[in-house]
């Protein structure tokens, strides 16, 4: 008994508590959000079910139905599909029993497509399919919830990795606690943990990759770290198209670690071997993801419909500028709708639950915008004031910046690709706040770092206030969502 408990005891008490906070937070979201009401949750759940029932993934382009007959019956019979986007709509609670029983008598294996998520690589769906098969109850509603529970476990893992990232970047225990608490209480992350969606696996893998990358960059390359980085980056690519930003980051981390260690140039194997053992699994993941996508979605993601086809650098730079800042004279009008920093970094990063229609009151977003703006300005100011420290710790700075820039570059390229052909302010920007969540541990660390730069008397006050504010965001978001679906 005591031997079994020993590894748990080695985990710092504060982290153990924060892992429990994350578990409760994610579980609460999994219950507060009605089934299939998360972002594109029908497509993701249908993918996992098809994989679990038949061993084959659905196609993006064709097939016998987006979802199985059973899932389709829940979708319409419980009013779950029609109420998406309708905050005034409610599920048919009184029909749960009969519709659920009827759904369980329907075919479960006829959701071969067309599925909008069909071009996604299968790693997350295989994980969710395993949860589907392991469900103690074979009813479809229960299986859907068990797949959500599997996502909650990934959230708990992400919080654990966020602690390790904080431990690489921050010295004081209270700063690590603050950085990790910000992750464990981030309401949008908790929400995404509580629905069926590969984003939560990308967050967990991305945070783990960041941790190993920072460790490699700061402490030097070992074979194990290089392999771990490669495997994680390859897994990210095989989990999610947005995971493609991680393979270059992993290789960069190895290179930074090598530069930090400065092995003699004549021992070329010392330089080449870590890059190869990192690059090969990462490349395998990328190639497998590309091959998978080509097999399941002709023309999408990596084909002629790719966002990088017909890329115009000048227009792209103009689009990125106007995403964050007002346009200047001589600049072409922004492609796409009036959609930018506030919508992505504030509203849908913290709120916009369910399928974006469940929101905090507007004044909350106003305060969050002020808070995020202050954090950005303060981070810049502290960086300028502590340039000497940052120069000393250049590997962490380079890798942290590269992680964020690589993700943002990928998101903006894809968004620009989607909007490129649109006219009259139309088009789908395909960039939303939850896409930023792989950076959430750096957001927590920035919060803790800036707080640590305040005058000593203010530090605990601000740290306590930040934790209090995040608790409020988490609980009020849960309350609003529970009332929206069940009140």
């Amino acid at each position, binding site marked *: 008994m005591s031997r079994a408990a020993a590894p748990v005891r080695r985990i710092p*008490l*504060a982290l153990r*508590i*924060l892992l429990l*906070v994350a578990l*409760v*937070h994610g579980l*609460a979201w999994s*219950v507060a959000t009605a*089934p299939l009401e998360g972002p594109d949750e029908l497509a993701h759940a249908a993918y996992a079910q098809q994989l679990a029932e038949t061993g084959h993934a659905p196609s993006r382009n064709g097939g016998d139905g987006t979802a199985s007959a059973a899932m389709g019956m829940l979708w*319409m019979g419980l*009013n779950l599909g*029609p*109420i998406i*986007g*309708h905050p*005034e*709509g*409610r*599920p048919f*609670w009184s*029909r*749960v*029993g009969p519709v659920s029983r009827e759904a369980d008598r329907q075919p479960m294996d006829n959701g071969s497509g067309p599925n909008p998520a069909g071009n996604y690589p299968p790693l997350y769906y295989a994980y969710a399919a395993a949860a589907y098969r392991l469900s103690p109850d074979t*009813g479809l*509603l*229960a299986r859907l*919830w068990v797949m959500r529970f599997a996502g909650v476990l990934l959230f708990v893992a992400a919080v654990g990795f966020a602690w390790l990232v904080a431990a690489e970047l921050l*010295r*004081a225990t*209270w*700063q*690590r*606690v*603050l950085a990790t*608490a910000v992750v464990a*209480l981030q309401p949008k992350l908790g929400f995404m943990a509580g629905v069926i969606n590969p984003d939560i696996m990308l967050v967990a893998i991305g945070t783990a990759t960041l941790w190993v990358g920072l460790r490699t960059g700061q402490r030097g390359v070992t074979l194990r770290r290089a392999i771990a980085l490669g495997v994680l980056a390859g897994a990210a690519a095989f989990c999610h198209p947005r995971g493609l930003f991680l393979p270059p980051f992993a290789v960069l981390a190895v290179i930074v670690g090598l530069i930090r260690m400065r092995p003699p140039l004549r021992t070329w194997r010392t330089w080449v071997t870590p890059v190869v053992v990192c690059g090969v699994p990462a490349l395998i993941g990328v190639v497998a993801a590309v091959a998978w996508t080509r097999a399941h979605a002709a023309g999408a993601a990596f084909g002629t419909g790719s966002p990088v086809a017909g890329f115009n650098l000048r227009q792209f730079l103009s689009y990125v500028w106007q995403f964050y800042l007002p346009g200047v004279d001589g600049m072409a009008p922004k492609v796409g709708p009036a959609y930018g920093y506030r919508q992505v970094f504030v509203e849908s990063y913290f709120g916009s639950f369910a399928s974006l229609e469940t929101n905090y009151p507007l004044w909350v977003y106003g305060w969050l915008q002020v808070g995020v703006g202050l954090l950005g300005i303060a981070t810049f100011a502290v960086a300028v004031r502590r340039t000497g420290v940052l120069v000393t710790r250049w590997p962490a700075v380079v890798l942290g910046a590269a992680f964020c820039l690589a993700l943002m570059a990928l998101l903006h390229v894809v968004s620009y690709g989607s909007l490129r052909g649109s006219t009259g302010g139309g088009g789908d920007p395909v960039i939303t706040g939850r896409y930023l969540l792989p950076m959430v541990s750096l957001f927590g660390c920035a919060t803790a770092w800036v707080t*640590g730069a305040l005058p*000593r008397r203010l*530090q*605990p*006050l*601000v*740290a*306590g206030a930040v*934790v*209090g*504010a995040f*608790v*409020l965001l*988490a*609980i*009020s978001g*849960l*309350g609003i969502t*529970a*009332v929206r*679906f*069940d*009140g």
Partner: protein
Amino acid sequence: MGRWALGAAIAVLALATIAKIGPWVTAERGAPAVTPSLGGLSANNPLRVEPGHLVCVAPVPLTGQARIVQLNVHAPRRAQPLRASVTAPGYRGTARIPADYPVGYETGVYGTLSQPPPGDVEGRVCIRNVGERAVELAGTQEPRSQVLAQTTLDGRPAGTSIALSLHGEPASALSRVGTIVDRAAALTGLLPVASVWILLVLAAIGIPVAAVWTITRGAREDGPVA
């Protein structure tokens, strides 16, 4: 130092609870009991109803909580009275919607049922224009808002779904916690109601206590560093 962190966290939580969360959970508001037919998100295709004509929506999963019929009406010049009837095997409730709503734009109108449905039962909701001029009921033909229930006009498919909902009596979120927990548990298909109650307590009390405790202890352990 931990004291200051504790004090700040408690101050933020207390202030927000008193100023915002408390009033929100205790404020009485109407809650949809069933929303069998929805309006459009991007397309509004109203249904014109001439005097004496009858619009029906069926099937509607009625619940015992339903007390008020709501729909959205546009009367171009003068408001027209409407009469709603809600029927199910062994049950008939009626509601008058008086002609006292604003005209010239789409507006929500309400009628209180003469008696609530007996419980969870499949039924039908019908609206008759008992006025002298035509009115338009808000509705949509957009595919994403289509529901199981069909809207008919004088017994024939209307080609559009009207926005219709039945509401319970106004009540606070706090007073409906039991109902919310029951419904949330049912929709998991797995969790017993008791476990959702435990989760609710852990989320509402456990999360704040644990989060505040960790930052307080962290601040006490090593004190802040510059």
